[in-house]
């Protein structure tokens, strides 16, 4: 019997889509081991989230709701998560492979003297041991790793695990919150959110990416228009980032972000090995390139060998028509 603890990430009172994925995966693991699923959620004014978390299969919801927790602080959040680990006597802790999840996972691992397995794409039980699959070299290879010591911490890659609603509601337990100054060693002086309505690259279910074939920064408008029609995020190859056409935050690849959307549309991207590493786990890949020999076609499910400046606007028009 192994108990599972999930950290459910929320921002501004909204659960992240990958938090629901983590809860569902936690439910599967708890069922597989005959254990209890506890879900810890931390923030301010978040009582409403209990019902949602329960509806995704949590047995117990450990809620830390306090005005002092409105802004994420690694020290304060990690301390509460550490309390949740003790009270749930969990042997497996699931977080998401997001900026917050990775940081909290690492701090908690050091506090609990536990191993942390990052960016996991598959989990199974082998007897009492959790066995996971995770990418290395940004996806050029994968490791199967067994956890030999409890507790073990795991961050799950967004967009890989299915979120599944269940019938039922968990019991909510309010956590005691007592934050000291030592828990806020890092202060956030200012946060500026972008006005963009596009989804975040690592969370997006569709990504439209541009490469060197875009020819210049101004031409990305056609990629952006297609992205907006599809509700997609915009990505970029290293060449375009190095040339200063796109911000580094948009870079997909071994020295950028590793993504696994349902659909990845590569426009004018030849497919350097380090780029392929970052996106070849996408479920469906479309390549648009004038060079039929470009390596991107080797990983693409669908290809159009033509000038992207003709194809991308045509694709946008066709998508608009179909989705209208």
């Amino acid at each position, binding site marked *: 019997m192994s108990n599972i603890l999930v950290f459910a990430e929320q921002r501004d009172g909204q659960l992240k889509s990958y938090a629901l994925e983590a809860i569902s995966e936690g439910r599967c693991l708890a069922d597989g081991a005959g254990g209890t699923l506890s879900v810890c959620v931390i923030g301010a004014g978040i009582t409403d989230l209990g019902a949602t978390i329960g509806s995704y299969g949590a047995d117990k919801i450990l809620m830390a709701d306090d005005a002092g927790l409105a802004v994420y602080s690694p020290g304060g959040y990690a301390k509460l998560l550490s309390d949740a680990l003790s009270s749930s006597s969990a042997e497996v802790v699931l977080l998401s492979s997001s900026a917050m999840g990775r940081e909290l996972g690492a701090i908690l*691992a050091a506090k609990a003297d536990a191993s942390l397995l990052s960016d996991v794409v598959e989990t199974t039980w082998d007897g009492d041991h959790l066995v996971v699959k995770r990418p290395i070299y940004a996806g050029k290879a994968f490791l199967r790793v067994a956890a030999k010591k409890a507790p073990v911490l795991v961050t799950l890659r967004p967009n890989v695990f299915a979120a599944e609603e269940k019938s039922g509601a968990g019991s909510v337990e309010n956590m005691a919150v007592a934050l000291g100054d030592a828990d806020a060693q890092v202060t956030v002086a200012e946060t500026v959110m972008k006005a963009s309505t596009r989804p975040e690259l690592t969370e997006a279910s569709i990504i439209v990416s541009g490469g060197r074939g875009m020819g210049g920064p101004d031409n990305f408008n056609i990629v952006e228009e297609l992205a907006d029609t599809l509700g997609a995020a915009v990505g970029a190859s290293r060449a375009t980032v190095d040339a200063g056409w796109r911000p580094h935050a948009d870079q997909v690849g071994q020295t950028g972000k590793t993504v696994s959307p349902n659909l990845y549309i590569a426009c004018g991207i030849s497919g350097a090995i380090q780029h392929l590493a970052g996106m070849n786990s996408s479920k469906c890949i479309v390549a648009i390139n004038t060079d039929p020999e470009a390596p991107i076609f080797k990983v693409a499910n669908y290809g*159009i060998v033509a000038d992207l400046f003709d194809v991308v606007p045509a694709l946008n028009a066709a998508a608009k028509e179909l989705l209208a």
Partner: protein
Amino acid sequence: MKIVVCVKQVPDTETKVVIGGDGLSIEPTDVKYVMNPYDEYAVEEALKLKEAAGEGEVIVLTLGSEDAQPVMRTAMAMGADSGILLKAENAALADGLAVAKALASEIKTLDADLILTGKIAIDGYGHQVASMLGELLDMPVLPTAKTLEIVDGVATIHRDIEGGKETVQANTPCVITAEKGLNDPRYPALKGIMQAKRKPLEIKDVVLDAGGIEILEMSYPARKPEGRIVGEGPEAAAELVKLLRDEAQVI
């Protein structure tokens, strides 16, 4: 100001990964090893801070095999003053906490004002050692810095977060990880390369804590079924959109 920069030797991003005979690690033949790209930004930033202060010391700290020395010499050729190699076997894909513990126990003896490293190592992709170091050393961690300023013992960084930007501060000593864009790492000059050969590089044997994990197998990504060329002009766009909706069911 005493700055410790943790650097790792990793396979170059152009490397085609070939799994070795043991099925647990990569075949090192034909692999070009380089300094982890994000660690290069950390080295550069340390050197800039030292130059701006007009005094200070930059120590390169590496956990790895004896073969990691060239990467440390590169950091010294850029301008770092000395190096410490914590020599361990199978360090490349070792348990992150075991690595953090080994680094932390060495850093504790160095009385540093600042610990700099890259935001991630592009081989293991563990994304954890820096945050663990902070916890083990009881220091704040400022991750993924795109700018760094230190005034009167307070470090301020700018960083990208999901959907926006943040300005974050902490008192030194602290751990800071470097993001692309923090600076443009310098190329070592010939003079620097010559000087680096004479700079002190201490090698210490360490035994990594076994950690709580066991690597069972290394594998290649699943092969995708052969793709299909839908067409050779913009007229294929309508057909592609239909395929994406009806066959692939992704839009």
